[in-house]
């Protein structure tokens, strides 16, 4: 994160940050579409709704306490409560920035939102909707705020000089390793490992991946908090790195299965965006290309390996976010260039200490995210069932939890008006019903 010395509000910076914030919010909608396409049709709406619900839940918790715990003060592990319920968050710029404090708050809120939405990918098609909402509310406070404080808000990693441009720590490793814990705590789907559980709409997957890439220009391009060189560099790298990741994915798909897959392409877009998230404003455009091309390899390996395990981490949040975020955070330690970022060099440019700071983040973040998420879900599981009975899963989450279908035919649907007392008229063809 690059903090500028000026404390006057800059209208150009503010205009771009307002735009970036809207772009990042749109990512969560794109993620919902991406996830919805990857599940079976009977779970389309529920999967999408977990992302929509994340917007509501995380916005409220972030405004009340999350933002304060992440961005108030320089405590080692956690911030203070000075900004509880947006206290002292107004039009004056936050120290070192050139945008109103409120804009900074709402920009950061969109990051918290997408992170909890990402984790839903590990538990779709089986976790009950109500417990997910409770989990989302608590997770944003207990895990996200803490990791955001470590990486962005003045916590111990930030103070050491660990570089994380746009959220390799809190967003990517935070979601990826929490997703693994969530998958273990909630358990595998009923038919996992027995039947092929296939994506029901690959066009949604591609469109969702495209919306995510589009929004990521705000996610990375806004993480310089203005229209400065760091933002411009990150913006350019957000095109370069995913493009290289997609090319690598094509090659790996072709070698492995002799065909290039569409779901693979959509996945590779996300992997590439995640790889460049922590590194965006710190590495040269050339290294961004290399990072996309090489960083895709471990992610691909995990995606191929994971289904062979008993772990139903359903939509591979660990591979696409956890492993890619881990790789990106470490890559900074090798290829960061002070001549591009004005902050620090990596190992290749003579500064081995940076790699040490990056490695510390790459070890501490997964451990905290995994343990805290696992314990949190186990505790919620003591109070209420995390998942429904097998029959609910067989019928599908859309009807069970929302009373709607993604693709209703409309045939045979009889309007139930309130005057009937909610009783549907008995169809002529079924006079004996209930007899």
């Amino acid at each position: 994160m690059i903090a500028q010395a000026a404390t006057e509000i800059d209208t150009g910076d503010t205009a771009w940050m307002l735009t970036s914030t809207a772009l990042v919010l749109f990512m969560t909608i794109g993620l919902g579409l991406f996830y919805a396409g990857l599940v079976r049709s009977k779970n389309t709406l529920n999967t999408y709704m977990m992302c929509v619900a994340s917007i509501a839940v995380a916005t409220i918790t972030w405004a009340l306490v999350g933002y304060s715990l992440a961005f108030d003060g320089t405590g080692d592990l956690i911030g203070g409560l000075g900004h509880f319920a947006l206290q002292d968050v107004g039009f004056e710029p936050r120290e070192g920035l050139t945008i109103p404090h409120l804009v900074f708050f709402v920009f950061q809120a969109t990051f918290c939102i997408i992170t909890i939405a990402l984790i839903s990918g590990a538990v779709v098609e089986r976790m009950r909707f109500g417990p997910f909402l409770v989990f989302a509310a608590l997770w944003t406070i207990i895990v996200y705020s803490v990791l955001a404080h470590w990486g962005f808000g003045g916590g111990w990693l930030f103070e050491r000089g660990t570089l994380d441009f746009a959220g390799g720590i809190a967003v990517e490793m935070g979601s990826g390793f929490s997703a693994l814990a969530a998958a273990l705590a909630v358990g595998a789907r009923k038919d996992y490992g027995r039947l092929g559980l296939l994506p029901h709409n690959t066009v949604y997957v591609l469109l969702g991946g495209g919306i995510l890439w589009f929004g990521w220009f705000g996610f990375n391009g806004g993480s310089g908090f203005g229209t400065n060189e760091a933002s411009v560099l990150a913006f350019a790298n957000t095109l370069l790195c995913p493009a290289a990741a997609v090319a690598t994915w094509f090659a790996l798909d072709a070698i492995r299965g002799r065909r290039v897959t569409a779901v693979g392409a959509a996945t590779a877009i996300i992997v590439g965006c995640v790889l460049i998230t922590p590194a965006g404003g710190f590495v040269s455009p050339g290294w961004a290309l290399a990072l996309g091309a090489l960083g895709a390899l471990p992610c691909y390996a995990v995606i191929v390996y994971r289904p062979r395990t008993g772990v139903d981490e359903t939509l591979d949040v660990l591979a696409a976010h956890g492993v890619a975020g881990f790789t990106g955070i470490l890559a900074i330690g090798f290829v960061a260039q002070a001549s591009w970022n004005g902050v620090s060099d990596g190992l290749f440019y003579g500064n081995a200490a940076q790699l040490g700071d990056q490695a510390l983040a790459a070890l501490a973040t997964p451990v905290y995210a995994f343990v805290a998420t696992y314990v949190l879900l186990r505790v919620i599981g003591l109070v209420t069932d995390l998942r429904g009975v097998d029959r609910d899963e067989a019928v599908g989450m859309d009807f069970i939890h929302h009373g709607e279908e993604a693709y209703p035919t409309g045939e045979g649907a009889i309007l139930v008006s309130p005057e009937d007392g909610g009783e549907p008229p008995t169809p002529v063809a079924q006079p004996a019903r209930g007899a």
Partner: protein
Amino acid sequence: MKLVIGIVRPEKANDVLEALYRAEVRGISMSKVQGHGGELDKVETYRGSTVAVEVSDKVRFEIAVTDPFVEPTIAAIREGARTGEVGDGKIFVTPLERAVRIRTGETDETAVTPVGA
């Protein structure tokens, strides 16, 4: 030679397939159908309009078998499809007059016996 028609819940279709496979019944057609068999309506709400969906999605199996396979096929469909709730479906068995395998021109019992069986 009989045609066995099984109409089952869509969420049990995979269980029926597995049961048929275990009973060594091969040669199956499946289609998605909609119908009503006396089960409770699904009540859904779209933007304030509450509707009772009178027809339910079902999956229809059509299996042409030789006479010795009729009972195992019926048993397999029941085993896979049964939940005990109203709406589990029906099985119909009708006589089959002729069958022709398009590729070879084989007829009747040879035609409905899968290759390699």
